[in-house]
């Protein structure tokens, strides 16, 4: 039962993230929306892993790897946005 609830939650997160990505007005909003989507994907993987006890370790390891890759992508995206903001500020001066 709880598996079904969390599957739906995972889908909800992906769909909300997608909606946020579509209507974002600011780069930061896009990054946040992508991260909301990735939380949904991770949750779906973990839900699949937890269907039969003991929980499957392979998807859990994948999610751990995914979390670190997601923060790398977030940090890189933010660095790009900061650079963009600095270049724009310079061209306005």
């Amino acid at each position, binding site marked *: 039962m709880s598996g079904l609830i*969390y599957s739906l939650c995972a889908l909800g997160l992906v769909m909300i993230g997608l909606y946020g990505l579509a209507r974002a007005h600011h780069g*930061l909003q896009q990054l946040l929306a992508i991260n*909301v989507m990735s939380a949904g994907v*991770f949750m779906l993987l973990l839900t699949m892993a937890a269907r039969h006890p003991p929980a499957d370790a392979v998807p859990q390891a994948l999610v751990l790897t995914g979390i670190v890759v997601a923060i790398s992508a977030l940090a890189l995206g933010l660095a*790009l946005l900061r650079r963009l903001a600095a270049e724009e500020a310079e061209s306005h001066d």
Partner: protein
Amino acid sequence: MLDAILTLLILALAWHCVRTTDLFEAIVVFIALGMLVALAWTRLQAPDAALAEAAIGAGLAGALLLASLRQMPEMSATRAPGAKTTGLGWFWWGLWGALGLALVSGVAAIQTTSVSLMPQVQAHLSDSGVTHPVTAVLLNFRALDTALELAVLLWAWMAQKQLFVPGRQTVYPLQGQVLKTAVKALLPLMVLVAVYLLWRGSSAPGGAFQSGAVLASAWLMLWLAQLPGLSRKQGGMRLGIQAGWLGGVTVFLLVGLLGVFQGAGFMGYPPDQAGAWILLIESAAALSIGLLLASMVLVSMPDFQEGTL
């Protein structure tokens, strides 16, 4: 019941996070969302992932976002004047709904199939050198994934170094004796916790990722309190930091190559030595992850100057 409430809270926070036009508010909601998601993952019997999400996904991501926020243009500056601010057109809503339905039917289809790799993991656990299944998968069975993930982290950091813009803003330094004393008292404890998490990873939830996240926050605190600490100007520190950045991937790949000469194949270890090699790799990886994550947050600070790192 708890699951239902948690799910509703998560979805409500996610909705608010993407809906709000106040960027600061969106970030704060995102951090809270990360914490609740971590809570949900402990309910899904994934304590390793929950620890990592709380420390990295909510904590460090929040620090990165908040530090970057001040250097971004205002929300209104990026929106064309007079542009429609209301949601999507009917066509896009239709597409969005259709995709949602497709996803629901797809997930419903996987619910009935049952594939688990856990029996294989448990069958070979005694050869892996550790007793915690997740660590066995990360550092032994799927070691190449983890090595490449460290490479991705390193690459992302190198790319950020290239994009670096010196901070132009001045911020009030977090000074004060209370902060300095607290950091001095907490620092040894944090290092101890990091080593404990690393050691514990072989038999229980924990390991290089969680340990690295704790190390990263220890370094950030040291820097925020402006204690004489890790800065490039101090002789051998520069080399040490560079070695730390590269250490994780290098040690991982060298041990992986060693497996070729021992006849266990690339990234394979002989079962009787596996425990020792895994501990060596995890130590180097935790140090690397800690340094890389902390460096990423440090360069995003509004007052960061080149040469500090």
